[in-house]
């Protein structure tokens, strides 16, 4: 796992981590502001809605971070130091995605902790926030599986990634119901919805036609990871590294 550790350390610069945790903490802040006058029942429902709808800030943080996993090495010209090693390409791809996932999970947990603190601050305790951890973890893994290969392949991966988030996940997946099944955010949300009994109306709207459920969500997530792994392996083998 030397490569994964190296990539993770390189990504997690202090300034970047602080900025991205702050970005992914927006739902916590909104929750804190939104539940002042709410009773505990309303607060739980509101929590799901806020995390589902405002959680996109985490997606952008995950994009910035995971797309940089191999892109920074490529842009800086340091890729030969890791590429020219006796590491099979599938294992190289797996370690890259693991590094991106763990980094995004750390950022996601940072954001999630902000919601936990907000929940405790308004007197609702840990109850409504705990299942949301699954949302951030699942989303982190899913986005890493997509954005790590994208970052390696495309110099303008941030722009393309933003296009995916805004055009595909936010607009198209809402309009064309079939596309919602291929939305990583909704896949992660379906796992969260499977764990959270008090899933709000807005959250259900966001989920759209995707069926809530841990098993199905995890299976779809596994498929996304396998596709990402395959794509990165292929790219490492077939495309110029520099």
């Amino acid at each position, binding site marked *: 796992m030397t490569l994964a550790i190296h990539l993770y350390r390189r990504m997690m610069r202090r300034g970047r981590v602080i900025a991205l945790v702050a970005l992914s903490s927006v739902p916590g802040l909104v929750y804190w502001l939104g539940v002042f006058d709410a009773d505990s029942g309303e607060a739980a429902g509101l929590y799901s809605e806020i995390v589902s709808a405002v959680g996109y800030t985490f997606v952008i943080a995950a994009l910035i971070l995971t797309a940089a996993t191999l892109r920074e090495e490529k842009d800086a010209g340091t890729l030969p130091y890791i590429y020219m*090693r006796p590491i099979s390409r599938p294992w190289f791809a797996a370690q890259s995605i693991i590094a991106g996932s763990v980094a995004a999970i750390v950022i996601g947990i940072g954001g999630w902790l902000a919601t936990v603190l907000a929940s405790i601050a308004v007197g609702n305790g840990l109850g409504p926030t705990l299942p949301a951890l699954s949302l951030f973890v699942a989303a982190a893994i899913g986005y890493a599986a997509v954005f790590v290969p994208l970052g390696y392949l495309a110099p303008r991966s941030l722009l393309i990634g933003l296009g995916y988030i805004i055009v595909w996940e936010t607009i198209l997946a809402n309009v064309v119901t079939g596309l919602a099944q291929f939305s990583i955010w909704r896949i992660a949300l379906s796992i969260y919805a499977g764990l959270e009994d008090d899933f709000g109306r807005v959250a259900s709207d966001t989920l759209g036609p995707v069926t809530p459920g841990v098993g199905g969500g995890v299976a779809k997530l596994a498929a996304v990871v396998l596709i990402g792994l395959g794509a990165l392996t292929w790219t490492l083998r077939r495309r110029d590294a520099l």
Partner: protein
Amino acid sequence: MTDTIVVTEMSKWFGLKVAVSEVTIGFRPGVTGLLGPNGAGKTTLLRVITGLQRPSQGTIRILGVDPRADPVIYRKIALVPEDETVYDRLTGRQFVELAARLAKVDNPKSRVGAVIETVGLSDAAGRALGGFSKGMKQRAKVAQALVSDPEVLLLDEPLNGTDPVQRAHLIDLFRQLGDEGKTVIVSSHVLAEMERMTDRVVAMVDGRLAAVGDVATIRAAMTDKPRRVYVEASDPRRLASSLIVTPGVVGVAIDGGTVHVETSDAGDLARQLPVIALENGIRLARVEPVDESLESVFRYLVEGR
């Protein structure tokens, strides 16, 4: 002696730009210099050989293996890239240790210490690479390449930024590695550096092989090539008429106040010019040799083939 690296009809292009064109060549153990001006295709050739880039056509075999097909070959190949960038937050020792761990080196600690000592970085190894001078970074890059004890070592402009002492040390090191039977390819655009490292030179220009042979052949070609010198003088006509009968001068032309001189012996012209000026009462304002660059020599070699 069999070739350890075999490049067969290899071309590499990026869109419409041809970086390397139909190169067929073999490299054997010992030091080989890859010589050529900037933009000649040296870096692209090294990147394709190491598998960092795919050949657009043709094949590469290192120790009989296509490096892109089997990464296990990277146990036996190492590259010192041209890019100055390293991991600035790592110390020199951490950088080399990272290379050792990724290359799955046995007993990495002692090996790391040994190569750091070999490149003369023992005192600075605990410092962050970001604070290293360019020459020190070059040595750190050489150390990370040597840590896996590769059979094939490719170095892209490894002497850039090094001071004369460091340069002499690295040149000795490369020669020693070549003497030990390793295949060492060193790219450079400085012929004098190459002469100190090896007799065997591959010269490239415009993505093509310009010459393959020993340094003496290249040197001779350089000597044969007429040199052009621009001379600004107070009386260009008088100077031109005197120069035309000077031995070694093969052509003279006047352009305004400047005399364009072509000579087969630039050194002799440099000696004769002040004498002629003094004898004829001509004041010399400027003497400028042109097309002295290696690029012009390579172009001459290519055109002369």
